[in-house]
């Protein structure tokens, strides 16, 4: 009986070691899909260790010829979790160790028995593989080990010579091993299961957290990421994740910051941390755990933030900013980990993508509508026809020319708004329009064109220039009593191509509500095609001139 107790004692030591392993960062939860090759190697090492330890912690009996041991626990668990091959290997490893490192007449039979037990457990694994919830139970471990240990004794009787000694060995080791080891194996399984459940709970809790963030940010990010939404976003992420501080940046500046250090991490500050720059440049998650690498605030030396996860936000594969989770020195690692940052960034990125998609969709609808209007601008059409009819009276050739300009204009109007045109095509469109307007406002209107011929091939969204020229007429030239003058220029300046439309009315005013829709649309479509650094700008000197400038990439290669 004392032997059984001693064995239980040894098993307890095991359990403690195993428990510690389960709590260590080395522990990886068993995935629903059974272990992959790398996981199998780890299982092999862990359970071989346990089985070999079983040899050492065993109690020698029958004058050292045999050892009451817990080796089987290792091989059986390996078999149950990893299948017959793993069970066989762990059993064989422990067996070889038993034979080579420790002596005794029952050594060989014990080694063979342990190997067979591992194999047997592997067969159980195969049988129950499709039902992991039934395989991974203390009961299966108990029964399998019980049967295995009974078989163990049979193998000892068969393989140990002389038979007397075999009988003596079985008498000595049989009862304790058959009683204690199944219980030990069951306890191992229970520890494993408990740890597994705990990990599931943590995973469930972080999914819930992520879902909550998702729920609260979806509406916010529908408008894209800007100053106001970034601050709110940072606050939500901080509230839901419980980290010390959260920052949201674009690729150049801090947009929003919440939490510890918000006194010096101010929205609008340029990005200064090398970690952030690295995350943006490499489009990858950067992690400073506060131990091996620390986050050193470049703004204030008094900053207590010490560890950080920086995850890039991306739309269509391009980095548009980052979300950063910080913990202060005294709380590093508490709530934060790499996967939380990664998950969060993926979530926010997909929301941004949705927002971008929605915006582009509505932009497309809007420009289609606008275009439909422009295609049949009744005022322009009927005034043009009236002018041509008047000119027909005196100058049929000129009237014919004007009709050709009119048909050119309307033909170009029928282009889809999603198309891209060259500057040359745009100028032809605008040119036809201008010829007619010049005839309408005969004597009151002069138009100059000054275009760098090298830029004729640059590309822009179709219908970029026409609305701007039309605006210059509608709100500018035709609103003043003096004679009108318009200049269209295209030239290169600081690495970009600039196309300008200038009139001498100077009547431009900050558009109210829908008034500037046409120009906003042009601006957004240019930005959609080429990015935020391009688009429209307006200069106005009241009563003197209004100049609208379209900034485009000099190469003009549409992506």
């Amino acid at each position, binding site marked *: 009986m004392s032997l059984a107790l001693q064995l239980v004692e040894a098993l307890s030591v095991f359990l403690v070691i195993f428990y510690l392993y389960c709590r260590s960062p080395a522990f990886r939860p068993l995935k629903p899909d059974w272990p992959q090759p790398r996981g199998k190697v780890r299982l092999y090492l862990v359970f071989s260790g346990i089985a070999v330890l079983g040899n050492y912690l065993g109690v020698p009996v029958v004058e050292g010829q045999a050892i009451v041991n817990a080796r089987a626990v290792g091989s059986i668990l390996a078999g149950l979790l990893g299948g017959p091959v793993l069970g066989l290997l762990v059993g064989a490893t422990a067996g070889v160790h038993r034979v080579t490192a420790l002596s005794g007449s029952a050594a060989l039979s014990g080694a063979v028995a342990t190997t067979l037990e591992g194999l047997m457990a592997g067969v159980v694994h195969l049988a129950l593989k499709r039902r992991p919830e039934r395989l991974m139970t203390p009961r299966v471990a108990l029964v399998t080990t019980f049967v295995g240990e009974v078989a163990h004794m049979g193998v000892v009787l068969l393989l140990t010579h002389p038979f007397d000694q075999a009988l003596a060995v079985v008498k000595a080791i049989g009862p304790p091993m058959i009683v204690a080891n199944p219980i030990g194996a069951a306890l191992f399984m229970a520890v494993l299961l408990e740890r597994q459940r705990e990990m599931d709970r943590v995973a469930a809790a972080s999914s819930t957290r992520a879902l909550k963030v998702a729920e609260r940010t979806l509406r916010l990010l529908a408008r894209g990421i800007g100053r106001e939404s970034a601050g709110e976003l940072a606050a939500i992420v901080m509230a839901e994740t419980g980290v010390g501080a959260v920052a949201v940046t674009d690729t150049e500046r801090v947009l929003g910051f919440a939490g510890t250090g918000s006194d010096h991490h101010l929205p609008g500050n340029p990005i200064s941390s090398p970690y952030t720059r690295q995350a943006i440049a490499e489009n990858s998650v950067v992690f400073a755990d506060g131990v091996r690498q620390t986050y050193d605030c470049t703004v204030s030396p008094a900053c207590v933030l010490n560890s950080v996860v920086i995850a890039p936000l991306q739309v269509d594969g391009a980095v548009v900013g980052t979300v950063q989770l910080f913990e202060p020195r005294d709380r590093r690692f508490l709530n934060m980990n790499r996967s939380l940052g990664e998950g969060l960034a993926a979530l926010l990125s997909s929301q941004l993508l949705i927002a971008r998609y929605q915006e582009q969709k509505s932009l497309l609808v809007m420009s289609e509508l606008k275009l439909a209007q422009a295609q049949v601008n*009744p*005022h322009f059409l*009927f*005034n043009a*026809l*009236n*002018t041509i*009819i*008047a*000119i027909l*009276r005196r100058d049929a050739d000129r009237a014919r020319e004007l009709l050709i300009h009119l048909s050119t204009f309307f033909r170009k109007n029928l282009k889809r708004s999603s198309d891209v045109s060259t500057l040359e095509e745009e100028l032809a469109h605008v040119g036809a329009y201008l010829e007619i307007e010049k*005839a*309408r*406002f*005969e*004597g*009151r209107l002069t138009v100059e064109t000054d275009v760098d011929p090298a830029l004729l091939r640059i590309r822009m969204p179709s219908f970029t220039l026409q609305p701007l020229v039309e605006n210059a007429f509608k709100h500018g030239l*035709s*609103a*003043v*009593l*003096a004679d009108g003058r318009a200049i269209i220029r295209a030239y290169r300046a600081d690495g970009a191509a600039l196309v300008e439309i200038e009139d001498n009315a100077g009547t431009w005013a900050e558009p109210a509500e829908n008034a500037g829709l046409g120009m906003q649309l042009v601006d957004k479509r240019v930005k959609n095609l080429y990015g935020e650094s391009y688009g429209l700008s307006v200069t106005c000197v009241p009563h003197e001139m209004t100049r609208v400038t379209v900034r485009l990439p000099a190469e003009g290669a549409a992506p």
Partner: protein
Amino acid sequence: MRALIVDDELHAREELASLLEETGAFAVAGKCGNAVEAIQALRKERPDVLFLDIQMPAISGFELLSMVDDADLPAVVFVTAHDEFAIRAFEASALDYLLKPVAKERLARTVERLQRGPASGGRPGLPRTPIRRIPCLAGRSIKLVDVAEVDLVRSSEAGVYVVLAKGELYTDLTLKVLEERAGLVRCHKQFLVNLDNVDEIDLEEGQAVVRTRSGKEVPVSRRFLPKLRDHFHI
């Protein structure tokens, strides 16, 4: 009938003039490219009918109508490229509404209407759009002066002058029109004053005087004094 044509497009004016003469019913009394020229021509030429474009620079056709005394207005026919203004045009009691390009047959119906209807006037006194900017001549150019900037308006034999804090400008609008539609108050047969810019009223015996913030003095005749006092609750 003598017709005045107002349109900011040269060819549109020429075409309409040709069409009108072809009907044999009209003699073209003048062609104006903007509202200010039109106000002068209306007074000088006294036409029987006004062919008026609606969309014109600075002052639209509707605004033009509100700047002319009803008594000086002939029959009005709007000529425009689009029909979105039709309802407003009839509210302004236009006699007809023509769409550009104008067909001869359609113009013939206008002629009938003109010959049947009253040659001029006879319109109900509908409330007109208030005048917010007063067209003035500054040298050869036309300046639109905000009513708020006006201190007073004076009339003399040389014409009507709008007096600002600095300088004064000639206008073709009459005192009557400005009093009725620009919110200026009559204080003398020959003066209107902008109450918003009044600094003090001197009620010394004999002749009362209004002083504006910029220091200009306007005489108040006995006839208009009670009304002026009402305005200031004194």
